[in-house]
């Protein structure tokens, strides 16, 4: 009984860890998928006055079960582009990168967040249509 009492917390922590990492990767897959959707929206939104916000909305809508207030999207137009692109003026043939980050949430009972600095990051670079 004594051994069982000693091992049970360890087993529980392991199980919780497995569940947490499972959730982590689920969030990672969801984030990658949402970023791809947002990037596609961005690529096809040239000339739309709300191009960047539309892409971010598409990203949020595709991020099912994620807390969208914790998603941090970043849109970058590489300096190697032929033109000086911006969210309001994108040029066909240039490239744009959409990156998004999301906190990992590895909180484990009694131990707290075991990796507070962990952040999920996904990015996709597309050609503007």
């Amino acid at each position, binding site marked *: 009984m004594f051994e069982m009492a000693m091992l049970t917390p360890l087993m529980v922590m392991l199980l919780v860890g497995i569940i947490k*990492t499972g959730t982590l990767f689920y969030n990672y897959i969801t984030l*990658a998928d949402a970023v*791809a959707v947002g990037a*596609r929206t961005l690529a096809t939104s040239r000339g739309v006055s709300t191009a960047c916000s539309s892409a971010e909305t598409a990203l949020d809508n595709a991020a099912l079960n994620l807390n969208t207030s914790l998603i941090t999207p970043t849109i970058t137009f590489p300096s190697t582009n032929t033109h000086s692109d911006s969210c309001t003026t994108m040029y066909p043939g240039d490239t744009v990168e959409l990156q998004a980050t999301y906190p990992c949430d590895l909180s484990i009972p009694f131990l707290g967040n075991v990796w507070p600095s962990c952040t999920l990051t996904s990015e996709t670079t597309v*050609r503007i249509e």
Partner: protein
Amino acid sequence: MNSQLRRLYHEQEGQALFMMCALLVVLLGLSALSIDLGFALHAQRELQASADAAATAGALALPYATAAATAKSFDGEPTGLNYKADLPSVTVLNGTPAVTCISATQLATLGITVGPTCTNAAGGNAVVVQEQAIVPTFFAKLLGVQSIKVNANSLVLEKGSEGAAPEPVNIMLIVDTTHSMTNGDSNCTGTGISNPTREDCAKAGARTLLSELQPCDPIKGCGTITNGVAQYAYQSVGLAVFPGLTATSYDVDEYNCQATGLSTSNGISLYSNPTTAPPYYTVVPPASDYLSSGNLNGGSSNLVKAVDWANGNDCSSSKYGLQDPGGAGTYYAGVINEAQSKFAGSTGAENAIILLSDGAANATQSDFVSGTSSTYYTNDCHQAISAGQAATNAGTLVYTVAYGSSTSPSDSCTTDSPAISGCTTMSEIASNLSMFYSDDADGCQSTDNPNLTSLNQIFAAIGYNFQSTRVLPFSLYTP
């Protein structure tokens, strides 16, 4: 001995150790499932995103032969723009990225009846990308699984298929209004006119084009419309004709039900140096008021009034829109230059010129204003080719529609040396051969679009070019 075994059988100390060992194997399996499989699934999703981005970038480069190389620059390999540090082992497979051909029959299974053809410089209408990554495992190694292979496939169709999303563009439509356009065209149907002239057929084609376009921002709508220009214009269309006008004030005669007849003594100008005005070729500057609730806005759009008699316009089918009095021969290098000048200052939007003509530029000295240099009344067709190529070099997409074009230099480009036909002229003005169309009436055939021979088909196909690429089901790909 028996007593020893009996004691061990009833012994309970240390049993948790055995249970733990058994459970550890189960937990290891669960960890492998949760972490290794999770990481592999994430890798697959990232790989799919890079394959889609690469195939789309390549499809955007079609019909040029550089499409595969463009796709390669966006893939997930270390040299690609979608390389990811946590996915270092990506390789492209099976000779991809590659250009492939999706047949009209295959496209029809998706409900796409008009799509891009494969007879172009790249030899196909879609780009295929297949990528593979080997994802190392963490816990599954203990169970003998060192890595997991994940694959991603993507097939993206070139622009030009019906039903895709519209993209912003500024279009200048140039319509031949020389006297040859008064000839009848018995092959032209669907104009709503029993014996249509070529001009009627050209106007019907223009109506088809306008119906395919999206004048205003898909999200915000049009906003305020001032002088035909919407606050949130999206696909703007302007109209220019040749011969041109002596003053801009005559443009109203091209869209007010032909209330006043135009002629060389009233409004129609002789030609001149192609960079000077008059003549004024533009009838309607780029406008975005041509549709209202999805229908042609004949009530207030000058652009629609120039090509249609219905929807609130007071014209009749026998008296409407553009006039074609002739009298000034054919010369269209100037109108191409003027159309290109309408794009000055446009930022972000794609610019396109669509030229409809038989291509037979044959204006001579008497068709030009007095004092014009002979440079301009000779080699009329070659001048038009140079103007078209200059527009292409400035980034404009130049589409040409050869309408009743001749393949014989002697009855088309009569001022040119070396000899060239109207048909060849029209094909060389286009930015590439995929942007050259012909109704094939006089043996002038488009090599890249041989099956599109009615103006309605041609203008619909051109309209689809201002729409996005499409990601196709990979099952359509046959290596």
